[in-house]
């Protein structure tokens, strides 16, 4: 029982020496899942940052000494620009699921022909 290999064998049977496709599949599935989670977290962070910035406009304007009536045109323009930017972002790089679903809907009738 003094052989190192026998000790190793008793501690845990070694996996097959050849490639194990099941193991590889599980690893790649985990990689994909982690990538998905990372991109979701990044997107959530972006959204929080955008809303934070929008919320910050009001106290900044107030701190600058502008009252509501004088700041109103600036705020309206800022709001319109923000809404336009958000819409553009959502349209171009936005929710992948929505975009891919729309594309799938568009493609489906073509495939049936």
């Amino acid at each position, binding site marked *: *029982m003094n052989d190192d290999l026998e*000790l190793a064998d008793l*501690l*845990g*049977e070694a996996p*097959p020496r050849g490639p194990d496709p099941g193991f*590889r599949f599980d690893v790649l599935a985990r*990689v994909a899942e*982690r990538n998905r989670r990372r991109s979701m977290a990044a997107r959530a962070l972006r959204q929080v940052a955008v809303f934070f910035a929008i919320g910050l406009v009001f106290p900044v304007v107030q701190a600058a000494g502008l009252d509501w009536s004088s700041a109103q045109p600036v705020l309206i323009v800022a709001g319109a620009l923000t809404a336009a930017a958000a819409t553009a972002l959502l349209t171009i790089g936005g929710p992948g699921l929505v975009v891919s679903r729309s594309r799938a809907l568009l493609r489906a009738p073509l495939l049936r022909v």
Partner: protein
Amino acid sequence: MDAGEEARLIGLARNGDMRAFGHLVDAHQPAVRAFLRRLVGNYADADDLAQDAFARTWEVLERYDGSSSLRTFICGVAFQYWRRARRSQSRRQAREDAYAELADTESEPPARAAARLALRKAMDDLPGDQRAALALCLGQDFTHAEAAEVLKLPLGTVKSHVTRGRARLQAALGVTEKAS
């Protein structure tokens, strides 16, 4: 897999080629899984950790500088995962898993099953670094120098861990150092 082919696959994987990374997983999974199986004792948990380690390797492949082998790099990641998992899991639970696993191996001769149980218990009682050094070096998958790189320990410390750990495992099996 030769070094040139491995370097080519690493380059492709760094650029997001999942197929190339799959080949690297195929090449290194036996060593990483064997190391974790010896370390953890529970095959399912060991493979779970191994998969996490490979998935993490994909994320940090940029940090691999080629100064050591990729196998050593992945085992280093796996070791960190094991240390983290160990902190969050009580020793009692680990031992229960080992018992449950032994209960599953009914086809095994009783003497061998008892030896495995005694060995597992002795292994669980070893300090973490000593345990990992043994798990790497006992199966002769890794040299002492490679184990030192994986564990980020001096070479002399690893050699000492292996010698002392082996003696404790042999003692658990009733084998004296003189007899070995």
